[in-house]
């Protein structure tokens, strides 16, 4: 018996949300399944949804594997998650406004100032500036794992530019195309309003100086970026221009884009570019990807940048441990979603515990992402553990550790048929004039048997995520 919570089967019975999928999967002959899988892959490749992995050579047109077996939530399961996500997104934004303003939470001693103000992601150039509607992080991606029927944990927050939403939308598109009957038989909440909601969210934070319908653009690092497909996909669905730094320029108090008809003013920039690169006059002077002078225009209210520069200080893995505290401090509420217990290696007592229990823990770099620079204790060899022990000792404050969570599994099509594989969930919460999110999110699945790492750069795949209507 597996100790993991299986989202479909419990005590040899099918859990209600998956009832509509039991017959579908059992009745599908292997040859049909393989043909459908091939069809999906061909479609993804034809549309151009590919994913380049940072720092790896190989096929630049690699696909993220798509698993056809949907992951399902009941309406009430989702309602609870949704409340928790919105609560968290509100608190994270309140925190950002605070630490770039008076820093009440630090003054009150609820979070150490060192963690905030000496953080690499803390951007002193935006101190004293309150972005339109008081929003720093306009798209909050919150990674959630499940360990039991009602047990959900937040693994990490992504306040800068969480990626993957195109896979959420395309996975749904693919399923509706290949299995229309499933959508007739199951009442599934639609998600296709996401691009409209995103555009409305961005338009709602146009700067005060914008006196007409705001022009929104998406700023991409360029077509060599691994997420370029997503940038272009979103721009298309939102009906806005996809620009590179070279397409924008500052003239006087505003930002303009270079068009065939001359300069056109830009009001809101949804940037998919790290802070360090957005303006060579303010940040890295060698950046060729940004827009010189952009920060001056931003600070004087001529343009909005989403997410706001400096938003990253809220999603730092060391700051993460204080999010429940933020919720209590700013909202006066108890957190609806739990954090995973976390040990901060920068603190002596925690470091001692981590050192003694390394074989049972998951250790992550504080600033790492994409599943790189992490150790999964129970899945590592003695030698790997010892190597990692040295890394931690060399720079303890760069690491946090968490217990190895018994991540839930969902049925997944594998070579031999259907088998349970571990999953997580990334919903995308939009924060502007209103806070909203589409039902569901991106389900990532660790396709390797027993693997707990769902990152696409580490052999993870994606699934369609269903939220059933009431």
């Amino acid at each position, binding site marked *: 018996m597996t100790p993991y919570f299986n989202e479909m089967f419990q005590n040899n019975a099918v859990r209600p949300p998956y009832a509509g999928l039991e017959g579908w999967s059992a009745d599908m002959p292997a040859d049909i399944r393989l043909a459908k899988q091939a069809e999906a892959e061909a479609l993804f490749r034809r549309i151009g949804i590919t994913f380049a992995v940072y720092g790896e050579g190989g096929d630049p047109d690699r696909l993220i594997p798509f698993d056809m077996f949907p992951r399902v939530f009941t309406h009430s399961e989702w309602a609870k998650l949704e409340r928790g996500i919105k609560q968290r997104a509100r608190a994270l934004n309140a925190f950002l406004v605070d630490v770039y303003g008076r820093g009440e939470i630090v003054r009150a001693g609820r979070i150490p100032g060192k963690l905030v103000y000496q953080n690499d992601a803390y951007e002193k150039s935006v101190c*004293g500036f309150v972005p339109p509607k008081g929003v720093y992080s306009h798209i909050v991606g919150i990674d959630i794992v499940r360990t039991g029927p009602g047990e959900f944990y937040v693994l990490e927050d992504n306040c800068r530019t969480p990626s993957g939403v195109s896979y959420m939308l395309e996975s749904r598109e693919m399923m509706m195309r290949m299995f229309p009957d499933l959508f007739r038989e199951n009442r599934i909440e639609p998600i296709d309003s996401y691009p409209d909601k995103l555009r409305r969210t961005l338009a709602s934070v146009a700067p005060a100086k914008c006196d007409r319908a705001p022009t929104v653009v998406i700023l991409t690092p360029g077509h060599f970026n691994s997420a370029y497909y997503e940038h272009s996909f979103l721009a298309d669905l939102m009906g806005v221009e996809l620009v590179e730094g070279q397409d924008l320029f500052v003239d006087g108090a505003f930002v303009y884009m270079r068009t065939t008809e001359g300069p056109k003013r830009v009001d809101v920039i949804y940037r998919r570019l790290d802070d360090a690169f957005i303006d060579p006059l303010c940040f890295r002077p060698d950046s060729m990807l940004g827009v010189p*002078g952009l920060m001056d225009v931003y600070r004087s209210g001529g343009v909005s940048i989403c997410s706001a520069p400096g938003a990253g200080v809220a999603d730092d893995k060391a700051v993460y441990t204080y999010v429940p505290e933020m919720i209590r401090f700013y909202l006066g509420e108890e957190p609806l979603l739990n954090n995973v217990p976390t040990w901060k290696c920068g603190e002596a007592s925690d470091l001692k515990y981590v050192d003694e229990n390394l074989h049972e823990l998951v250790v992550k770099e504080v600033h790492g992402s994409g599943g790189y620079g992490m150790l999964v204790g129970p899945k590592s060899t003695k030698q790997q553990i010892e190597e990692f022990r040295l890394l931690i000792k060399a720079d303890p404050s760069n690491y946090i550790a968490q217990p190895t969570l018994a991540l839930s599994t969902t049925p997944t099509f594998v070579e031999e048929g259907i088998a349970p594989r571990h999953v997580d969930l990334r919903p995308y919460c939009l924060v502007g004039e209103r806070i909203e999110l589409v039902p569901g999110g991106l389900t990532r699945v660790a396709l390797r048997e027993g693997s707990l790492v769902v990152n696409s750069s580490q052999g993870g795949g994606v699934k369609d995520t269903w939220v059933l209507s009431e």
Partner: protein
Amino acid sequence: MLLSVDHVTHYRYDRPVRGVVQSHRLMPSKFDGQQVLDWSVTMTGGTMGSAFRDGAGDWVQGWTVAGPVDEIEVRVSGRVLTTDLAGILRGHKEIVPPEAYLRDTDTTVADAALIELGQLIAAADSPLSGCHALMEAISAAIAYKPGTTRAQTTAAQALAQGEGVCQDHAQALISAARAGGIPARYVSGYLQSGQDGMDHEAAHAWGELYVAGIGWIGFDPANQCCPDARYIRIGSGLDAQDAAPIRGISRGSGAEILSVTVAVQTQEQ
């Protein structure tokens, strides 16, 4: 003391560039030691962007010049009435918490030698006397010698070679201070020193260290003193690059030839 400033930065491009964007911090800081009588910044062919006071209290003004252009002149001139406050930055409004100035940058990472100097602060009777001791030590360790360092020279490199200019003094000071647990920042401004006012150090830089209970205090290792009435404070940052009075970029392949003249003179009141 009534000081007058005339500061001209001249850019020439060997081939015309398609446009220039600059971000200026060229206004004297607002605090009890400085009163601006008149002040102007002009840029040939430039369009003024909007301006704002940043969280560190600096006045930032954006400028753009539409190309093609092969010559640009930025001229700063004005008069400031200064008062000697023994280096204390009194009455300066800012929001950035002092702790944010404990962070390192590429040019101010402390090496073993700088960390050792930083220990002077803990060794002194009080943080204030520790800061003075550190300034003396930096001053003794780095001899003033123009042309021996570049804009990118790090604090550690300058200390190791024992020579440099005011930028190196200031960066070594703040690097060692941070290593000693004192928030520290780089300050750019003007200094009246030579008789004729045309001194090589007229465009000057020094450090500011944060001493709990007192606040930000200027220390100038290059002249072994705290800024007095001869100093005009302009802006600050984590290092020289972050505090640069003019940051700019041109669009085009033309190579830039830069010349700067600065004159700071005392005037009869």
